């Protein structure tokens, strides 16, 4: 799998560490179970830490712990499984998570934009994926009705100036 972030291919520096495995040096990605079991040891490491959530794991219970992670990976086992969209919004809006949210699994071209709007900013993509397709997919729609996590001014804000200034104030306050 290749990784796209900020509209570019980037190297995936996070090594996935299985639950029984000893962590390697450098950036690692662990499961929720591993995090819960080895929280203190993992936090004592002097390297970036990533958390891999499966589709049925809500990030909500993590609370302020989310800020310990440089990356939170959300799993999409099937493209039809849309739970990750809610997890991403909870991470960004409710928990105030500022790190990377990475989508992995069965993700379709036409889902990248929805994901991006929910706060996912890194995408594991199938080998052979072309960057121009990714960029095009993210620009096929430019007008959005809903307030979301991407800070794009939505239709309500564009229609009603007073509303939009209130929204900008909210955004600035964050």
């Amino acid at each position, binding site marked *: 799998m290749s990784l796209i972030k900020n509209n570019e291919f980037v190297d995936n520096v996070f090594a996935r560490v299985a639950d029984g495995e000893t962590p390697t040096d450098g950036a690692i990605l662990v499961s929720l179970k591993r995090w819960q079991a080895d929280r203190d040891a993992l936090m004592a490491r002097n390297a970036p830490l990533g958390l891999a959530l499966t589709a049925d794991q*809500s990030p909500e219970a993590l609370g302020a712990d989310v800020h310990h992670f440089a990356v939170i990976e959300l799993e999409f086992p099937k*493209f*039809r*499984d*849309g*739970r990750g*969209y*809610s997890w991403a*919004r909870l991470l960004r*809006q*409710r928990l105030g998570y500022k790190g990377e949210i990475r989508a992995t699994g069965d993700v*379709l071209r*036409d*889902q990248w*934009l*929805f*994901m991006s*709007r*929910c706060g996912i900013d890194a995408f594991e993509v199938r080998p052979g994926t072309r960057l121009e397709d990714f960029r095009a997919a993210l620009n*096929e*729609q*430019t*007008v*959005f*009705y*809903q*307030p*979301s996590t991407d800070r794009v001014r939505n*239709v*309500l804000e*564009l*229609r*009603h100036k*007073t*509303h939009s200034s209130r*929204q900008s104030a*909210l955004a600035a306050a964050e």
Partner: protein
Amino acid sequence: MYRYDEFDQKVVDERVEQFRGQVARRLSGELTEDQFKPLRLMNGLYLQLHAYMLRVAIPYGTLSSRQLRMLGHIARKYDKGYAHFTTRQNLQYNWPKLADIPDILADLATVEMHAIQTSGNCIRNVTSDHFAGAAEGEVDDPRVWSEIIRQWSTFHPEFSFLPRKFKIAVTASAKDRAAIKVHDIGIVIRRDATATLAFDVYVGGGQGRTPFVGHLIGEGIAANDLLAYLEATMRVYNQYGRRDNLYKSRIKILVHQIGPDEMRRQVAAEFAEVKAQGALALPQAEIDRINAYFTAPAFETLTEDTSRAKQRQASNAFATWHDINVAPHKVPGYAIITVSLKPIGGVPGDASADQMDLIADLAERLSFDEVRVSHEQNLVLAHVKQSDLFALWQKLDAAGLGTANYGLITDIIACPGLDYCDLANARSINIAQAVSKRFADLDRQRNIGELKLKISGCINACGHHHVGHIGVLGVDKKGVEYYQITLGGSGDETASIGDIIGPAFAENEVADAVETLVDTYLNARQPGERFLDTYRRLGIQPFREKLYVAH
């Protein structure tokens, strides 16, 4: 009615181009059918038994004459000259070619229409009362709120891959004509003690394999919190709705499994969070902006029209049609007309391109340029002057649109069934036609009175059989079509799910069975009782005895 502004138009135009690209990739072979499927299903394009089927959204069933003409034009140019109005107030084309779909969508976009979210596991077309803005007893125009919900739900980034499809219906009347209690979310708009709008949100109703009547989950939600409450409900469902079993993935199963109290608690907790976040609070300016599109048309000050008495005497057919298909309007001198798409022996909900043109012309001249599609698969001219009724009826009648049967036993809802649908177990149209012909006699229909007969060709219940006073469900028994009958369902404010009466019937036995049930009712009814009332008073037993003694 609502008109697109530049933003609404751009959403639709961009979608047309996006889909054009997807179709091009499919036609060039870059996408396989398997890869194309999820994309086309985001856009109302199904692969049916014989051809692609395109489902066009008609938000809350409201059309301008210009839009209806375009629907007719598309039927003529790209299809076989007719199309089918559905129980979701939508329109289906049964024979379009894949290569033409982008052009069809582009044509639709020119009249502010689209096929967005008419399929897929997302929030589908919002439905509402087909008499909105015309009937007595409304507290507000439900289409204002339906439009607000339409916009919020269009390409919602979080809720486009739900466990299953999601249907929302809205009414602002104590008399529920939108079947809101058998929707995933049904909204009743009312006014509270201070005359302020308040929204009661019913969740977890639905038909299909496991039918339920919805529970009141949100009570008295404030207008500017409506979207926040809906977002909270959707988020609970998106997180915790079942995804392991297609048949248990609707929100009704979640509500049933955790119970309405727990559902209420979870939604309330999420609602508090969404509200605190603030971004979804509806600005009053937006409510006002949309309200302005639904201000009442410029009704003339009229008195009750008396010329009709003479016309009624001159034409029995007109008098009968008037009695049956004309409903009272809230403004003196006006009337609400149901244009029946249920001619005796016809295909319920089908209309030809010529008929669409005619109705569009009549709407333009006589009903403030507006047509409604009812979930009962008829068309409605909501604001006709009483003094225009006779001339209107003559035009309709000449075009095969003068059938007088609104609410009667031949005003049948039927899904397309196995004649078209890939999911169906049995045909529906044949049963509708057989029952319709059996009860063709209008005096007999009128004597029977209100009787809602609804037919589905499979358990997905697109034909709403669960809420038919008499419901008919097509099943497959070892390759042979059989039909299971239910009694006592209702989709109105007294919503109930029909009871299965007993073993299923063969195709050629269904009309007989319906006749036996109707005769049982006629013999047992007390003055003023409809079929449903008699059934509710007596229960299923007397009907069962009659039906199965005879067999």
